[in-house]
């Protein structure tokens, strides 16, 4: 077992985990941050997407020990003071979620995209989210929500 110091959603957290532990397991089982979802566990579906120093990564294939000294953001870290942020609100408004299982990962991938490219084109949205699968929505609502957000809709 190793003692890890992680920076999660702006907080410094000490956690004990095996050297081989995956970030997904440490977030969910170790820290109880179950907003990050366990999906395919082979880095295809993106349900486990979190931000690592602002980059969207699939936490099912990242070693937790590699995240020391880096800034981690999970879906629990979105929004401020209990209020939803603009992206979360647009997801609700445009029907960008149904069962909600892909939603935390989608939100994190879209957050990374919008930070990198505040006004993404359709193709940039497609590239930015092509590591995240959604079986419910047919992606239409997700497109609409991200575009609305990029256009400044609150």
């Amino acid at each position, binding site marked *: 077992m190793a003692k890890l110091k992680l920076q999660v959603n702006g907080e410094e957290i000490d956690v004990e985990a095996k050297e081989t532990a995956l970030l997904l397991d440490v977030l*969910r*089982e170790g820290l*109880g*941050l*179950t*907003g*990050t*979802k*366990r*999906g*395919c*566990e*082979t880095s*295809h*579906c993106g*349900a486990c997407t979190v931000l690592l120093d602002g980059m969207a990564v699939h936490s099912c294939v990242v070693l937790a020990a590699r995240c020391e000294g880096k800034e981690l953001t*999970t*879906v*629990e870290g*979105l*929004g401020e003071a209990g209020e*939803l942020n603009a992206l*979360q609100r647009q*997801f*609700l*408004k*445009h*029907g960008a*979620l*149904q*069962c*909600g*299982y*892909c*939603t*935390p990962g989608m*939100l994190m991938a879209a957050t990374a995209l919008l930070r990198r490219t505040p006004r993404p084109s*359709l193709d940039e*949205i*497609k590239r930015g*989210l*092509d590591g*995240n*699968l*959604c*079986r*419910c*929505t*047919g*992606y*239409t*609502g*997700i*497109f609409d929500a991200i575009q609305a957000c990029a256009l400044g809709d609150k």
Partner: protein
Amino acid sequence: MHTAGNKKVKPQSFSSIGKPAPKIEGRQKVCGTALYTADNLIPGTIWGKVLRSPYAHARIVRVDAARVKSRPGVMAVITAADIPDVLTGRRLRDMPMLARDRARFIGEKVAVVAAEDRNIAEEAAQLIEVEYEPLPAVFDPLVAVSEGAPELHEKLKDYQGLPKLASSINNVYSHDEWRIGDVERGFRESEQIFEDTFTTQHVHQSYLEPHSSVLSIDKNSGSVHVWASNKAPYQTKQSLAHAIGVPAEKIVIHVSAIGGDFGGKGALMDLPLCYFLAQRTGRPVRMIMTYTEELMAGNPRHAAVIVVKTGVKKDGTIMARQVRAFWNGGAYGAMKPIPSVNLPGAVKAAGSYRIPNVKIDSYAVYTNSVPCGHFRSPGMVQLVFAGESQMDMIAKSLQIDPLEIRIRNALQDGDPTPGENKHGLIDVKCREVLESAGEVSRWKTFKKAPHVGRGVALSYRNVGIGDANARLSLGPDGIVSLLITYADTGTGAHTILCQMIAEVLGIPFSRVKLTVGTTDSFRSESGTGASRVTFVLGQAVLMAVDQLKLLLRDRAAKMLGVSADGIAIKNGKAVVAGRSARSLSLAQIAAAAEGERLEVESYYEATETPPEGVFTACVAEVYVDTETGQVHLRKLNTVHDVATILNPVGHQGQIDSGIMQGVGYALTEEMVMAEGQVTTLSLGDYKIPNIKDISALQTTLVRSDVGAAPFQSKEIGESAISQVAPAIANAVYDAVGVRIKDLPITAEKVFRALQDRGARGS
């Protein structure tokens, strides 16, 4: 991308119904606080992992788990010898909890291990020694029904839940049949007869949440508490009680958030094993399938062989249609939820046409492959591909326009259909959706470019039957609370129920609160599925609101000293007729109840399929790259017949969802099988559409006036999917002249067909 078509829907005069109300559980879902089964981290919970059979069909000679029991960290090991010899299933009880003396598919569970740590459990399970003696296996349903094929279930006749119509044909455990007229006479009266065989592949529902089970036994009461990605809680409670030998009243199912269902989340899966492990270790147990396990041993859509024989007059009039469907049911029928243990779509195998002579036979067949279950519009998706592909082949042969031949044969008001609608369909919009599809796609004026083609397809379905409960109360704060035990699998059903209550009582949507109870709340009900929820649960909720209104009028009458007849409930108030100044708010009535509960309960059951059909037409436009065979979907126009739309965001969501799943089914999705072994064992190999696969979708709504569901609404959850694959197949034919009768329509198949045609020089 989706663009709205010319929506021919009248504006509504409702206050909540028809408004784009946001999902009531949406906030939790975008904050990551919605509680799915695996998120329920009960302290002390241990993991269960299974060992699965590597053989498609084998006798199990010996299972030796002794060595594994003493491994560090292993808390329990269970094989078939350690648990009761009970067969389980949703209807047909034919599946052992662990393979006992025989394994019938690759992926069947043979042993299970519990450990504190998931990896220890997984590793230990793999080290259990099993000696197998391979047996002859059968994978093709047509071979399985033939004489001399290996018999998979010698004791079939003794199984509980075996449908009455079970056939004497080899390996057939369910045979559904429907007849109209005399099909042989119909063929004699035909001028041309077409007979074609179509085949469809296994596909996985691909909900992103794999099957998850958490089970805890209360040490004091002995109650068994269950959290599971399962949308049929009462059926599950009964099946689990039978499987583990515990009275049903001792089992409590906590209805959890479900990460996608599409028909796939209703079976027991790992729950019995969780129970036996919990019983032996005294600890709560969780079992979460990996996606590899999902793909090899979930309960995917049936692969099928479908033979369609259609007799027509030269003018295209259909005289007779005979359909024989052979469903590759896999090793067990246990995953199918309906009493016939067949596929419900089979009843509509004749398509959306008025045909005087119809004969349908639907056979569920055992093979040594993964047991299959239900997936969005089960049976219909396969049958509409077959029937609608053949319609184009007929049109081509008779030199009639494909849209025109469909319009000529379209179902009309009053038409009966095989097995349903004895008194005839009502308010049929079959012709209208076809004509509208022709208009919006500019069918007649379309200029054909090289290797570009278009195809049309048609389907219909309806709401499903079943039963539902609702409990409604008015709290002291004036909040109206609804308690139900139906899961919302993501469709927005819960939100719609709150809209209905807000509408009838004239209160803001935000004043309605919905709670999902456990199975202790009610006696029983059908559970989510079959496009029944908004219909049967919606009707139960409307009944409850009416009862609550009566109760409130009564209370208000006493408080105001008038007769209850003179009181109306409007805009969230009890108002004395003709004297709107004299009124009481719901909160005032509730406050005066002085702790007495203002609560009502209702139950609704539908036993007969309502006569309103939902018709859907689809026009696909494709470009085919003739050098590679790759099909590029350029555009999809779908036309849906709708009555009142309860929530436009949710409604469009169901359309988009069904269509995308239809596109995957048509072009990319296939659980590739090699001698019973699924070889596409990750979501990298099994290809569901991703965001780059989205194409130009246009939705058009055609207005009808009546629907069986509340406020004259209709089904939408399952009606958008079936017509996509045949529309694309027909478009491919139109583009390059090759007919693909075997799904999915891969580049390889198209390329080969183009080469064959080139070789034949046609």
